[in-house]
């Protein structure tokens, strides 16, 4: 069993790549495989067969004949096959071609004069000194090879060279005559070591003739395990199948060769062997049919195992499966702090934290173990699932042995205890597009079966509760827990590094509630105020105001309770409409209460809406977040609780009757649309008469389309304007739209007024039938209705043709999303791959792994975007407010 290493662990320093020489293949081999069979009739591996026990074991009970290990202990060992005749390794065909071209067919030297060799060697040396990597040197090697290949006569021995062509995939011809792999190997053998660096070979790790195989390594059985089906039937791995083919042909080839069979037969068999070895390496080699399984499925051979998204690299090495994780549906829980996550009891009992037993905690640990894996009780009490003894043995705790194990517990053991409140875990939702997709949360064990968290944390995860599932990981080491708590906790990620503003913040109902609480400063009785504040932890009620002898509280005062002391801030609300004050801001005296003034942590004036507390946009939130993560967490926690108090007391509902507008308004909308449709018809008339003037650089048809689009867009806007004139701020839907909680005025006007022009690819709908969109219209009808203008509103309902057009527009949106996700996903993968190794060093240079400087000062000012003021390194306004306080704010207004 593995023991966890404490303290310093060793690191792999480097990995050297090299080619296997035939000698080395034989040396590392534990068995020479000669029979193509796998198991005998008793199901026992045949000796010298492909499943020889020297190559490792996959069946429980057996022991490896090389290392003596049992199933999970033996790492597996290589075997080898002696090939009767050499064959070419497909992966190196291009290399071999280059080497044959660049060297002399007689003497094997590179076809360059001695002085040229000297020049190129110097050049390579120079490049290496300048820090060129082997692949960069490869570009020089390519040139050398081209140069050498163009020589018709060897400068060393004077031999005339013949042109060598490559018949894909593995056949070489010299002026039409076929070169056997044997001949090729002989030629490659002649190339002296001194010439190899010029050809791009490192003589210390590779020889060209090794690219023509004489011995084939057989991978350990662990790499190609036999699968036993339920029926008891055995099914071999694809690699084993391929190896069987190779051994069979190899044997036949050897027999035929030894018995002196005709050259033709030998050549055929040789070629067949080449085919099998080729497909053994890469079954997608172009130019040859892929080897297939009996069922007709192409075999998955070595290259296929490594390649692509499902390959070893991307699927098993860059990404790994983990234990101590769980996944379930998510649901909201506003009474949790943003730092917390509600974990179902069932999950909490399955997921464990390893705790080292010390003399200080041994009694506590005993108690946990004694409770066993399933402690009974009304409330959740943690127990433990396993203990790990000092020798690494793992003991499962059951109800029966719990007492026993608890007694035996010693210092130095490890107890795997259940999750308890306050444990730190990682919480994640895919797609993990940015670092806020995986954050640290503190556990709150809760009943029921879903993960729960504060709604303010939805934006960073991009989560909603329509059935989304999320993953939770329990950290297993002290270092990991410490790092998670300091670096990954939700409160450390309130500010997004993307734009230096808050990404966690109020949304939907929080914004509506704050709007209701602060807009025009409503009054609340003591009773109401107490209800609103009932979820909140606050020192004392604000000073009450009196009117007609009645005690009451202002909404803004209630909101001020959650503001940090000493905060000074001014900004414009989302509802600000410059038309109201004629672009002359009236500050506190704003008629629509749209200028927020906060003095020493008190909201003096203004409406708290999306611009104050919204995620991504909240200015107030931004300022508080920059005061420190604890203050920010507290503010958001309080905010969500206050919001719930407000909105659940007042009540808030939106319905289709919100979009009811008077007859008069409907008539006006109708009028406007009729007008515009008529205008469009006039344009078409003009076009048909040929009187339309084309816009420069456009055809008449394009001009007409543009003009009609413009006219009809205008119609929809006008309809919207009329509708919103009759929809005031007493309307719930309007409150949501104006305060930025959800929806927009455009959505409302589409419900109340008119939906407007539908489009596909930015043009009016035009495809469908010949010269018309639907058979309901005349051929060549360019009018508004025939080309996808939807006059109706969502509320009134659509006519059948309108409904069809609307679906066309909607479909485009769906297709667009599907295409976009894959395209942007690939772009992000490439970006990450290109930039992943960059880091800032001690003096804020940006360097890559090789130590190359990418930037001399990160971002030209060394400032972390997360800590910037929306991208600005220093916000002078903020500094002046902090230094001069109110005096500056007064002055700024001028």
């Amino acid at each position, binding site marked *: 069993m593995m023991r966890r290493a404490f303290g310093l662990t060793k690191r792999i320093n480097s990995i050297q790549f090299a080619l296997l020489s035939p000698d080395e293949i034989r040396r590392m081999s534990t068995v020479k495989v000669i029979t193509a069979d796998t198991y005998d009739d008793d199901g026992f591996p045949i000796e010298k067969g492909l499943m020889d026990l020297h190559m490792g074991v996959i069946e429980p009970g057996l022991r490896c004949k090389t290392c003596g290990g049992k199933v999970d202990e033996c790492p597996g060992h290589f075997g080898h096959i002696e090939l009767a005749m050499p064959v070419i390794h497909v992966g190196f065909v291009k290399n071999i071609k280059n080497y044959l071209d660049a060297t002399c067919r007689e003497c094997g030297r590179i076809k360059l004069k001695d002085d040229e060799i000297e020049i190129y060697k110097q050049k390579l040396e120079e490049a290496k000194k300048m820090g060129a990597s082997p692949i960069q040197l490869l570009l020089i090697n390519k040139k050398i090879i081209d140069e050498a290949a163009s020589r018709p006569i060897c400068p060393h021995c004077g031999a005339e060279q013949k042109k060598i062509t490559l018949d894909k995939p593995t056949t070489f011809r010299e002026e039409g005559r076929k070169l056997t792999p044997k001949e090729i190997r002989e030629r490659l053998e002649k190339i002296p070591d001194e010439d190899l660096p010029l050809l791009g070979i490192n003589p210390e790790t590779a020889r060209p003739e090794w690219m023509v195989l004489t011995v084939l390594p057989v991978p350990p059985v662990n790499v190609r395990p036999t699968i036993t089906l339920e029926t008891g039937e055995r099914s071999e791995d694809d690699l084993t199948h391929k190896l069987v083919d190779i051994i069979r042909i190899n044997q036949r080839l050897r027999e035929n060769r030894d018995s002196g069979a005709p050259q033709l037969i030998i050549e055929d068999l040789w070629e067949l062997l080449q085919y099998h070895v080729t497909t053994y390496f890469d079954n997608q080699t172009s130019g040859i049919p892929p080897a297939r399984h009996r069922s007709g499925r192409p075999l998955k051979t070595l290259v296929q195992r490594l390649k692509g998204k499902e390959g070893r690299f991307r699927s098993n090495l860059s990404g790994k499966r983990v234990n101590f994780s769980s996944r379930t549906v998510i649901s909201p829980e506003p009474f949790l702090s943003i730092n917390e996550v509600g974990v179902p009891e069932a999950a909490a009992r399955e997921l464990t934290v390893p705790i080292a037993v010390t003399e200080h905690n041994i009694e506590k640990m005993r108690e946990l173990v004694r409770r066993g894996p399933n402690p009974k009780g009304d409330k959740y009490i943690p127990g433990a699932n396993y203990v790990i003894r000092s020798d690494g043995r793992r003991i499962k705790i059951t109800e029966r042995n719990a007492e026993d194990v608890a007694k035996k517990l010693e210092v130095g053991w490890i107890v795997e205890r259940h999750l308890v409140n306050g444990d730190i875990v990682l919480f994640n939702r895919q797609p993990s597009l940015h670092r806020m997709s995986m954050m640290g949360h503190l556990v709150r064990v809760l009943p029921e079966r879903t993960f729960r968290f504060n709604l303010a944390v939805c934006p960073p995860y991009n989560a909603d509760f329509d059935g989304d599932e999320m993953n939770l990981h329990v950290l297993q080491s002290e270092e990991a827990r410490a790092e998670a708590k300091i670096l990954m906790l939700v409160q450390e990620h309130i500010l997004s590094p993307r734009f230096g503003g808050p990404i966690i913040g109020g949304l939907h109902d929080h914004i509506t509630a704050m709007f209701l609480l602060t807009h025009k400063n409503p009054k609340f009785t003591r009773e109401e105020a107490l209800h609103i504040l009932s979820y909140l932890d606050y020192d004392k009620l604000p000073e009450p105001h009196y009117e007609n002898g009645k005690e009451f509280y202002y909404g803004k005062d209630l909101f001020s309770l959650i503001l940090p002391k000493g905060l000074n801030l001014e900004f414009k609300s989302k509802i600000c409409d410059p038309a109201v004050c004629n672009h002359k801001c009236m500050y506190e005296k704003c008629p629509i209460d749209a200028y927020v003034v906060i003095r020493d942590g008190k909201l003096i004036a203004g409406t708290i809406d999306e611009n104050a507390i919204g995620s*991504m946009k909240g200015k107030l939130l931004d300022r508080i977040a920059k005061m420190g993560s604890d203050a920010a967490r507290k503010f958001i926690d309080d905010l969500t609780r206050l919001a719930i108090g407000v909105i659940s007391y007042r009540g808030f509902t939106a319905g289709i009757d919100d979009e009811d507008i008077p007859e008069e308004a409907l008539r006006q909308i109708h009028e406007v649309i009729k007008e515009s449709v008529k205008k469009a018809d006039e344009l078409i008339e003009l076009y048909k008469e040929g009187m339309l003037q084309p816009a420069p650089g456009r055809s008449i048809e394009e001009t007409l389309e543009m003009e009609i689009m413009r006219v009809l867009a205008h119609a929809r806007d006008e309809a919207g304007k009329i509708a919103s004139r009759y929809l005031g701020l007493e309307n719930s839907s309007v409150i949501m739209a104006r305060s930025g909680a959800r929806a927009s005025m455009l959505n409302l006007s589409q419900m109340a007024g008119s939906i407007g022009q539908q489009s596909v690819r930015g043009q009016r709908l035009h495809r469908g039938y010949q010269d018309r969109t639907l058979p309901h219209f005349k051929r060549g009808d360019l009018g508004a209705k025939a080309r996808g203008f939807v006059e109706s509103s969502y509320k009134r309902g659509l006519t059948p043709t309108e409904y069809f057009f609307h679906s066309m527009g909607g479909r485009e949106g769906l297709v667009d999303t599907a295409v976009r996700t894959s395209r942007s996903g690939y772009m992000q993968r490439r970006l990450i791959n290109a930039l992943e190794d960059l880091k800032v060093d001690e003096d804020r240079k940006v360097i890559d792994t090789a130590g190359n400087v990418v930037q001399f000062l990160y971002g030209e000012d060394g400032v972390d975007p997360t800590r910037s003021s929306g991208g600005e390194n220093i916000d002078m306004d903020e500094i002046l407010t902090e230094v001069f306080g109110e005096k500056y704010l007064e002055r700024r207004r001028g």
Partner: protein
Amino acid sequence: MAELSIIWKDKIENVDRLRMNAPVYYAVDFEIKRELELPLYGYITLKGSEVNYRVKISEIKGYEAQPGIIKKTTKKLKTLLRIEEVQDIAAIPLSEFKKEEGTSLRRVTKFSYGVLEERKEIKIKKYRELTDEESEVDEYVKEKYGLSLPFSIIEKIVKTKNELGLKKKDLEKIIAKVVEKYRKRLVDPYEAVGIVAAQSIGEPGTQMTLRTFHYAGVAEMNVTLGLPRLIEIVDARSQPSTPTMSIYLKEGVREDEEKVKEVAKKIESTTIIDVADIITSVADMSLTIVPDAKKMEGRGVKIEDIVEALSKLKAYKLNVEVEEDRIKIKLPEASYKKLYLLGESIKTLTLRGIKGISRAIVRKSQDGNEWVIYTQGSNLAEVLGIEEVDGKRTRTNNIIEIANVLGIEAARNAIIEEAINTLEQQGLNVDIRHIMLVADTMTYNGTVEAIGRHGIAGEKESVLARAAFEITSKHLLTAGVLGEVDHLRGVAENIIVGQPVTLGTGAVTLVYRPKKR
């Protein structure tokens, strides 16, 4: 020192040969018609954007075959130069070479005489020097806090000081606060800025539109925007799918719409098919060009221009007859195929204008103070060669072209600008530092490299990281031949072998070992 000199383009191999064998005769494929004072310096450019070598020429004579000479090309050699020595010089962008009247910049990149200011040192120009006021602040901060504030912050401080008329005491208070904040805001060492940048640009990608076309500024012109454009930028495509330029003009021209239109006409390339119809007659095996008088006038083309353009078609021995308002062309040895091919090549014959610019439209600038030319198609080098063009403000969205004409720093700025504009146009807010980092990674080694397997990712140091990205087997196989060593310094390779990555907390190598009690 001003001198007359020669610039030409050659391959690195030839330069190496010259260097090895100098002094040597060197055969080139151009003629030198002017008398030049000897010895003289010539300059060799490798890729046509900057000059890297200087050669001393001691003799110039007509070409004659003789042994031991180095040839620039195999054919059409005209002159022999005696090369004394080859020197490596610090790269000088070609655009810095002054050109003679009448030669365009494009020509300079090939071969031309020019007066050249010899450069002895490379001067790094700052964005601008600090003013006295600013350096006062700079000195103060350096002295008091031992810290050098970035230029942009000093600028802000001085601006506020002047705006508010601050007294010294207040200014110092503010500077103290600024320094305090600035220190707090610095990035942490070992921060994985690359990953953060990649995520910050990639994440909003899902929110972008895929709609390729949008009208940007000018209603008549389509420009690729949104996600496709962003992908195009990071791909470093040599041709954007919709190349455009906005050409600003010098004072005295830009205010006058008529004058600007004149320039636009000069720029817009006109082909025969733009102004005339071509009729193919099989009966007498002839082509007839029928010019449209209206279109001709609009484009300012005369029949003579067409005739002249036709004379450039040397591949055919044409028989051109001008009859009143049409041009008849006959082929001596006519065949259907030849006739067809001729028709095709005549269609796209350029009569005037700049190659690659298919449309130029004159519009008022956004502030409404001047007339600007917007074009479809881009050809920066030639447009900059036009007298009236204000080279400082003129821009193109073809990044590779900018790199070739103006140099790598300009390309880097162009990437930043293009990316920011694309994101902003979609209403997405991404910090400029992230984009800068992407732009710098794409350009820091001197050429514009794409993000992806043909660019940066394909040239990573680590074998494993490359194998994990794309084309797995090829990378592993070549690694074996080259005997590459993976030092496990990056992220991907450390994840693969299962050990902590070298970023953030994993980058710290200092370990504290407490004394044993």
